[in-house]
């Protein structure tokens, strides 16, 4: 039995719409030094970020910051982040803002792993040198639990609204909350994460089930026993010599009920074929090519075709390889007859 985890749906629902934490002010104004580092790191040669003439020629009043730097102006740097993590680990910082509460609830639901899934930015106006940015973050959405490929998890979307004030206004010593009320919206960003239970993903949960079993009767047991012994057996009337497949208790040619079997050499030709797409049954891989093989001995057999579905066509020569799928079931798989390539 998997571990039972609590369900915090109700508590999480109350967090939707709440501010993630306090409004934050960027440590410094939009400046050309950071822009230069960014465009060099990105390999962005657009001149409007550094060359005033080029910016004006493009219709801007001055050089602008690359739009995708929107969040970069707010970031406080690696040292700040490391110090904060250390303080949290030591228990010297109380984190009771909505974002911390949400993360703690996710962890308590067993969703301790995290992956960022989406980041969508939209821009209201370009950022110019001297703009001071403010960001107001809130929790926009928390999904119901979902089984994803990575694991059983919830998606959480944060909405970050970016505002700008002039550097002078920002330096007046007013609180960031108060500054926002006088500021101009310059862009937004939605950031979505998946918090999931480790080890509950597609590969962990849905191991490929074994192929469905054939019904075995006294009439067809010899055929499947033969495959387990590595033999492709064809039923043979011991009175008139007619071969038959699929197995039956009697001979349609002479009515005899006496039979044994002969061994097929596993060589033949594709008489007809299909490629299955839907429905997709977990025990099989799709697209799934299946052939109706005319064996050289004269009977036909339905079997899987190996390899690229596109490579198969009616009339092609094939050779069987008998393979054990598990202790119980072996089947013939047909591949292209190499001799035919000549």
């Amino acid at each position: 039995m998997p571990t039972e985890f609590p369900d915090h749906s109700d508590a999480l629902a109350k967090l939707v719409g709440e501010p993630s934490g306090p409004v934050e002010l960027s440590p410094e104004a939009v400046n050309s030094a950071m822009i230069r580092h960014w465009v060099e790191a990105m390999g962005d040669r657009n001149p409007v970020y550094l060359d005033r003439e080029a910016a004006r020629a493009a219709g801007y009043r001055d050089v602008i910051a690359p739009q995708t730097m929107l969040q970069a102006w707010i970031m406080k740097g690696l040292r700040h982040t490391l110090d904060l993590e250390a303080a949290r680990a030591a228990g010297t910082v109380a984190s009771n803002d909505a974002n911390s509460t949400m993360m703690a609830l996710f962890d308590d639901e067993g969703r301790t792993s995290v992956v960022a899934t989406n980041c969508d930015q939209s821009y209201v106006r370009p950022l110019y040198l001297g703009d001071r940015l403010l960001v107001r973050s809130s929790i926009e959405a928390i999904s119901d639990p979902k089984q994803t490929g990575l694991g059983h998890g919830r998606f959480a979307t944060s909405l970050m609204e970016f505002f700008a004030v002039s550097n002078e206004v920002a330096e007046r010593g007013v609180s960031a909350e108060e500054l926002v009320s006088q500021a101009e919206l310059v862009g937004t960003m939605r950031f979505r994460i998946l918090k999931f239970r480790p080890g509950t993903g597609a590969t962990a949960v849905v191991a490929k089930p074994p192929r469905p079993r054939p019904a075995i009767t006294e009439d067809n047991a010899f055929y499947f026993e033969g495959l387990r012994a590595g033999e492709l057996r064809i039923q043979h009337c011991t009175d008139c010599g007619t071969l038959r497949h699929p197995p039956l208790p009697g001979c349609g040619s002479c009515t005899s009920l006496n039979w044994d079997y002969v061994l097929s050499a596993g060589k033949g030709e594709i008489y007809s074929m299909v490629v299955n797409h839907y429905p997709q049954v977990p025990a099989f891989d799709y697209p799934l090519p299946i052939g109706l093989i005319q064996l050289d001995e004269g009977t036909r057999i339905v079997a899987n075709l190996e390899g690229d579905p596109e490579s198969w066509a009616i009339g092609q020569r094939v050779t069987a390889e008998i393979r054990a799928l598990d202790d119980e079931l072996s089947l013939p798989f047909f591949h292209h007859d190499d001799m035919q390539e000549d």
Partner: protein
Amino acid sequence: MTSHAFAGKVAIAGIGATEFSKKSGRSELRLAVEAVKAALDDAGIHPSEVQGTVTYGTDTNPDVDIARSLGFDDLTFFSRIYFGGGAACGTIQQAALAVNSGVADVVVCYRAFNERSGNRFGAGVQGRAPIANAENAHLASYIPVGLLTPAQWVAMAAARYLYSTGATSEDFGRVAVADRKHAATNPKAWFYQQPITLEEHQASRWIVEPLHLLDCCQETDGGQAIVVTSVERARDLRQDVVIVDAAVQGSAKGQDMMTSYYRDDLCGLPEMGVVARQLWETSGLKPSDIDAAILYDHFTPYVLYQLEELGFCGKGEAKDFIKDGRIELGGELPINTHGGQLGEAYLHGMNGIAEGVRLLRGQSYNQVEGAEKVLVTAGTGVPTSGLILGKDV
């Protein structure tokens, strides 16, 4: 062969159906009861007069439960026919045999299921427990390989048909286009007002190559019932009389259930040939006497096979026969005027019989003017059956 004893002496007196949906919200038994009641009402026969019932071997609704639900009196005939949709017209033959031999005066044939919201045939047989019996052993050749669904079983034959006859997927598509054209003007059809083009057929996704999605019939929740009685009795009832000119079953050498892959070739349906031979011989009619045909269309390829087996065209010639709207309303041989099982509903062929009746009563939404003889077929790829229905003259 001479005429069958019942030919011309037995009639279809009533038809009744539920709505055709994807989620009925009712039990299969309730659908069966509603359809039977509607068919009896259509005929003007009280349920207490029913003496016989016929349904499919695959139907889950016991005749005795329907009998108790509707207050039937004593039953003297109850029968079932196996092989899935191949049973459709066979139920009418059973009823005709019973009525004409004096075993039962009024027989109700029915089929009802939640084939979309409940047990979906299109989902495949991979879940079937490998219990040791011959029906399951038949599937042993296909289940472990992954050949699991009716579409896949038909596609194996269809691929060879394309290879041998030079027909193309577009020829299959013309059947779908005709069906959907007719469904578009039938308010009872699921795809009412939703015709398709050949381009849309070609662009629809693969289900199993060489079959596109639009080569495949719907999955439907619903019920359909047909009331059979003597021509004499029918003439005293509510509706115009529709006469059973021929009702036959057919299974042929090398017959298998959906996977007759071991015959000399895969480009025919010899069991439909057996049906065709008897239809023409027992009715004394010929293909040119037929004003419209309801050809079983779970998957489009076998409609082409049927046109050939029934003698409407020669072997391998269906691809040419169906061109230029010949099988559409206004053409030489309109087929599936209700929209077929691609367009109206998949009721295992039973709704096709009802459409045959409507055409002869002048009640079809896509009426073929002056229709006097209509041919109806049942499930293909399996032991099957067929009807020729005629106007009372």
